[in-house]
């Protein structure tokens, strides 16, 4: 009892037609929606940077950005200067926030000079230096923005992830984790870069100890936490020469 749909030629033709239809459908959606998606991503970056320097609408326990419609306006209001550091050169660039950190990291791997964007903001008379970081979590990419003062003391941090486990690694974008970074020191008093380690059992769950270079880890999210430690160490270390030059 062979059916029409069992023949080889039918199968091959069906497969070809299906692939063409599905392919063009996906291509159509992807290309027609791309401008909207890119715009959303651009606004999200502004929101992230603002969040790190404390411009946000946090309520008691949840992290909330400034609304998407206000992001552009607030961004130009608070971010006074955007710079790009490349090798020893520092130049101003008011599109620095659109630099793709992932691409720059790939360039650095090839041995080329990468561009390091840094966003300088003013709020309540204080100056914030916000740097982007990017690394690997358990399943996929993780990234964030760290706001520092001129002594590289963390003033605020925002982390995000592409696909960490909900309830475990995904909690790096929760306030109970991000808030712990505020006030932590990145440099030793003698002027060496030490970074911040996400550590289990540091006997400081309330994070009162601000100069121990450690924050409390999330249970069940060891590898994501290690990823945060690694990206802070590797990416923020690159900014040390700039911060040293500020003091001269």
């Amino acid at each position, binding site marked *: 009892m062979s059916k029409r*749909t069992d023949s080889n030629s039918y199968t091959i033709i069906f497969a070809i037609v299906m692939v063409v239809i599905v392919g063009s*459908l996906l291509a159509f*959606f992807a290309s027609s929606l791309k401008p909207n998606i890119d715009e959303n991503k651009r606004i999200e970056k502004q929101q992230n940077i603002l969040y790190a320097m404390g411009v946000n609408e946090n309520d008691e326990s949840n992290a909330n950005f400034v609304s998407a419609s206000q992001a552009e306006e607030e961004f130009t209001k608070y971010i006074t200067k955007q710079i790009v550091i490349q090798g020893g050169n520092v130049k101003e660039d008011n599109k620095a926030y659109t630099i793709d950190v992932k691409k720059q990291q790939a360039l650095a791997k090839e041995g080329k000079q990468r561009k390091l964007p840094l966003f300088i903001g003013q709020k309540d008379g204080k100056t914030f230096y916000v740097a982007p970081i990017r690394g690997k979590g358990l399943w996929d990419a993780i990234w964030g923005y760290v706001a520092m003062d001129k002594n590289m003391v963390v003033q605020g941090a925002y982390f995000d992830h592409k696909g960490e486990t*909900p309830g475990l690694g995904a909690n790096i974008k929760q306030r109970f984790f991000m808030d712990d970074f505020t006030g932590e020191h990145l440099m030793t008093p003698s002027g060496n870069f030490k970074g911040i380690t996400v550590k289990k059992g540091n006997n400081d769950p309330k994070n009162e100890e601000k100069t121990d270079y450690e924050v409390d880890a999330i249970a069940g999210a060891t590898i994501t936490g290690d990823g945060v430690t690694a990206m802070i160490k590797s990416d923020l270390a690159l900014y040390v020469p700039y911060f040293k030059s500020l003091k001269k």
Partner: protein
Amino acid sequence: MGLLSKKDAALITDPLLDNNPITIQVLGICSALAITAELKASIVMAVSVMFVLGLGNVVISLMRNIIPSKIRIIVQLIVVATLVIIVDLVLKAFAYELSKTLSVFVGLIITNCIIMGRFEAFALGNGPWRSFLDGIGNAVGYGIILIAVGFFRELLGSGTLLGFKVLGDPIEKTGLYAIGYENNGFMLLSPMALIVVGIIIWIQRSKNKSLIEEA
């Protein structure tokens, strides 16, 4: 109710208990383990699967007479992947906040064996309306278990429900924590999800002996 005939209504109600996708058909276990550490993620996943399974079942059912049997699994996979990716793109363009909550689930939905299982077992042999009902019924059955597991894991593991500290604050030592209660961190890890699902299976089979498989 004139809306659904008795046979059609059974398509919705059967998967809720006596033919539950997780506890009886043993489908979709991997996602039940992966994302039930908190209640909110369980609910999001349940709703997403309902959407994809309902729609996917209809599409496969409409195509059932033209799909070549040799490559039907691949065709099913392509249909579900296409649906999920299009939904993801549309959300990214028009509801960016929502899409960020869902992004983690996209991969898990595509590879969810409930979806493939229902395409294969039902949609390939039934009309679109009945397939739709079957999809919704199974997704709800799946969602119930997910939410039950998520409820216990979040409550016992983190002491919260939907992020609210229902048992008090473990650091400030208020509520239950004041009398020495501690969260069970093990509940947050996948093995405990399997054990919770196992306990649900056990309870269900001890209530309804006809569900016990012959050894």
